[in-house]
């Protein structure tokens, strides 16, 4: 149980850390798009979390791809 909580916490921290990392050159309207899911009710929150998870995975994959390229 402790392990599960700890893993969840570490994932969440990583998640938020990634989420709050400033990245330039993106459309500032994207934030408003995301917010629409949050204010769209409980189902919207689910969409928001799902989107965040996908973004997280996307970022991880991109990072992994970059590392492989650097190694090569």
């Amino acid at each position, binding site marked *: 149980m402790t392990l599960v909580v700890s893993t969840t916490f570490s994932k969440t921290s990583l998640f938020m850390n990634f989420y709050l990392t400033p990245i330039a050159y993106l459309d500032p309207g994207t934030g408003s*798009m995301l*917010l629409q899911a949050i204010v769209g009710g409980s189902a919207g929150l689910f*969409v928001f979390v799902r989107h965040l998870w996908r973004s997280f995975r996307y970022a991880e994959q991109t990072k992994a791809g970059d590392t492989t390229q650097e190694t090569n």
Partner: protein
Amino acid sequence: MFRALGYGGLQDWETVSKKSFLQTGMQTGFIVQTETVATPTLPNIGFDCAAVLQHTAIPIITWPFDWSFNMLRAAALLTLDLLEQALEDNAILKDATPYNVQFVGSCPVFIDTSSFVPFQPGQIWAGYRQFCQMFLYPLMLQCWKNVDFQPWLRGSLEGIAPQDFSSLLGLRDFFRRGAFSHVWLHARLQTPRMIQPKVADSMKSSGFSRFMIVNNVRGLRRIVEGLSWKPRTSAWSDYDNTAEPVQRDAAAKEKFVEDVCQSKFWPLKTWKTVWDLGCNQGRYSRLAAKYAETVLAIDSDHLTVDRLFVALNAERNRTIIPLVGNLADPSPSLGWRLQERRSLEHRSKPDLVFCLALIHHLVIGCNLLLADVIDWLASLKATVVFEYVDRADVQVQQLLSNREDVFSDYNGEAFRAHINRAFVVVREQSLLGGTRTLLWLQPKD
């Protein structure tokens, strides 16, 4: 009023124009009557024009930075109502700006029919941020902070950015409805921190649906409905009810104004546009409305104008448009090449102007030259009903009591000379106190 459509716009219009919400909106007058011109002369306007729509003409185009609080609120509620109806009918508003709404008298009308487009599954409401910037934050600013929103909308045609508005809020404000999500969180999310570029696609594939937009729209409606601005008093809000000259001269002035109004082939409504400058509670605007197609009731006191709008809106008055405006600080032409949002004088030409007991405020209160004010009035080429308030008047003395009297040009003799240079005096009448004179003026030439 004509609207040119490109090929994409025409395709959208052909789909949306058949929908029942649009038909109902046009029948009830909440959406401007629109027809496709059968054989249009396509204008050369720099893009491939596929069709031309014709709208019923709106008497005078007004801008949100000249509206009062409840005018902006009425426009916001109309926008949200139409969006919800559109969503139920499988369409959506692609933007949400108050420039899409105009007032026929005190009744808001949605004029940008091409803003309605067919709804695509998974689509996000692209106008949400615009709605917040142009409607929600200005209304919250007025309601929560008692700060006039007009200079903010005049200062930026895109409205108030979430980051800016969030910075204005104090701790207490964050407990108000909508502050956390629509302001604070919105501002936080504006800072570009997301690594995934195609947010719209990702949201769609994550299951974003129309139902969520409807929820958001209903939530926004509840917030806007809950916003009210009701200060007890302002500098001019009770002037008409309490000031001695108003009480004393009201009957004589009404008779004089009515005589001028009736002079033009009454009972036909032959005055096209009347400007009532310094309208206060709209006593003379209401009189003029009996004889005019449109009356612009303009006053710099926001609360007075707002109360007038609320009263007119309750009557569904379709003649008088109240506006917040200061002649000494008028809204200029704005936007691209200063042609997008043009100044009032470019949008409206009055044929009758009321300038009643205003001149001393302009000359002594705002430091304008008497000759210049009269020249400006003459430049309007309209019949003018003018009330001259002499130096001996109690109100003028009050204005002068706390400032150096550098207004030597403000006297009866100079006034006569300037008036005779620019106008023909048709009739004049002294009022009871002996310090005020009404003049019916026709411009020379």
